[in-house]
């Protein structure tokens, strides 16, 4: 019995050591973001000497951080809301209509998940360029196109377990399809809606390639886009670059701090199904 106690202790120690190793890159980023350019060069591993907090206001200004933060928040919230609204409606129609066509449409959406973004990006940019839709409206529409398949798939799975008796009861009470769905069914889908929201929000928030092709004007750039140009410019000034990196990951780390369990579940659920 004592032996078992010892080995659990050992496992704990090893695990915590690994945890520290996992956090080291973040630690080094933050510590060095508080140094002067010269201090990073001669003293990469130690504590800042002297402290140079001015990297932060400088980086924030260069990054136009408030602007890119607003852009990121706007695009993420609007896209995720639209994906939730239209995917849940579509999945509801597919589950409640027992016809051959429903199966075919569902299969088309499921197959679309096999298509990697890079295999369609070149014609996509050309088509949307021709109709002058390489802008924020365009990218939100694109996120609906790329995000709906998995979202419909997840909603489809949940809807199958909601009894049709509920729909019928609502119909008898005089609800039409639209009211039945939004007042009776949709509230019952809350757990999967949280998953769909998290999955799409993390993807869209961090996305780089699609925005770089569609909304690459200075006043519409999101955080990853801005970061790309900023890093290219300041690659010899690690103090500014690291302060910029630290600010740019702060919003999502705060989000994670409040909802880690939901986030981990949401991000992994899609891949297991």
């Amino acid at each position: 019995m004592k032996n078992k106690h010892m080995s659990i202790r050992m496992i704990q120690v090893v695990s915590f050591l690994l945890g520290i190793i996992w956090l080291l890159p973040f630690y080094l980023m933050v510590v060095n973001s508080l140094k002067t350019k010269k201090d990073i060069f001669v003293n990469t591993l130690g504590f800042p000497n002297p402290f140079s907090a001015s990297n932060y206001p400088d980086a924030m200004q260069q990054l136009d951080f408030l602007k890119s933060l607003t852009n990121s928040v706007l695009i993420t919230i609007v896209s995720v809301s639209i994906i939730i609204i239209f995917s849940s409606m579509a999945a509801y129609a597919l589950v409640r209509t027992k016809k051959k066509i429903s199966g075919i449409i569902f299969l088309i959406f499921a197959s679309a998940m096999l298509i990697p973004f890079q295999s369609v990006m070149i014609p996509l940019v050309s088509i949307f360029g021709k109709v002058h839709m390489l802008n924020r409206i365009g990218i939100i529409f694109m996120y609906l196109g790329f995000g709906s398949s998995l979202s419909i798939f997840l909603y489809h799975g949940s809807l199958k377990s909601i009894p049709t008796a509920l729909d019928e009861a609502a119909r008898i009470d005089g609800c039409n399809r639209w009211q039945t769905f939004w007042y009776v069914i949709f509230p019952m889908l809350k757990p999967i809606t949280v998953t769909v929201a998290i999955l799409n929000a993390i993807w869209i928030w961090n996305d780089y390639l699609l925005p770089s092709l569609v909304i690459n004007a200075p006043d519409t750039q999101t955080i990853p886009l801005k970061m790309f140009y900023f890093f290219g410019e300041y690659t010899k000034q690690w103090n500014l670059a690291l302060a910029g990196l630290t600010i740019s990951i702060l919003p999502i780390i705060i989000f994670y701090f409040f909802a880690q369990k939901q986030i981990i579940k949401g991000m992994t659920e899609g891949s297991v199904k």
Partner: protein
Amino acid sequence: MKNNNTWFWLFLAPVMLALFFVVILPLIFGIYYSFTDWNGIIATRFVGIKNYINVFQSTTFLNALWFTTKFAVVAIIMENVIGLALAMLVTQKFKGRHLLRTVFFMPNLIGGLILGFIWQFIFIKAFAAVGNVIGVSALESWLATPGTGFWGMIILMSWQYAGYIMVIYIAYLENVDHELIEAAEIDGASAWQRFLHITIPMIAPAFTINVFLTLSNSFKLYDQNLSLTAGGPYDSTQMLAMDIYNTAFSQNNMALGQSKAVVFFLIVAIISLTQVYYSKKREVEV
């Protein structure tokens, strides 16, 4: 009855329109363009399979294909071994195991582009500083050679993705019947035997999921590749997705880029269909 049909199509219309214009139409156009001399604006004539011959004569494409394959093999092994090891550790009953799960998963929240930049600093500055302190010159000038670029990518992706893989293994490990393990213990099975004969068969489905997940992720990798090495030195660490991007948008060779994109689509689709086939087969067996 007519009314019944109308609501069906109204509910489906927005996503179907989006899927059509964003995925299906570009896919069809893309396949069509790959057989023409398309320059991004117009296609004047059919060129047969000429573009595809060029794809397989393109050294950057063949190098990228080889690099991506090599990377995928090593990454699948590393991510799964580390992911499973972490999962085995944090499913033991000790204080702090939930905190550690959160820590190991954390890199997955942050975009690949930013992770690559962070690790650029670690490899270039921190590795050099450590090398200086302990007198190992091999730690200097990382990412400046093809070999260190390759291992840099592997280290970055293992660090990021092992925590994700870990979560999937945990879900299956927590279903392992503890009475079964205790019974085996009483019967005198060693820890290794218990692992081999009880744990491994129980987590076999997770293993299938994770191998395919890491495989298709390795093939589709772009952001981390761009921000960590940008394909350098001399295109030696350029992966398939980056080669497609560069051919189309940097060299402005749209038809060739799109043909590479079609080949890329076929590779990724074959991987995914194999996975669907395997998981369906398993469902039937169960």
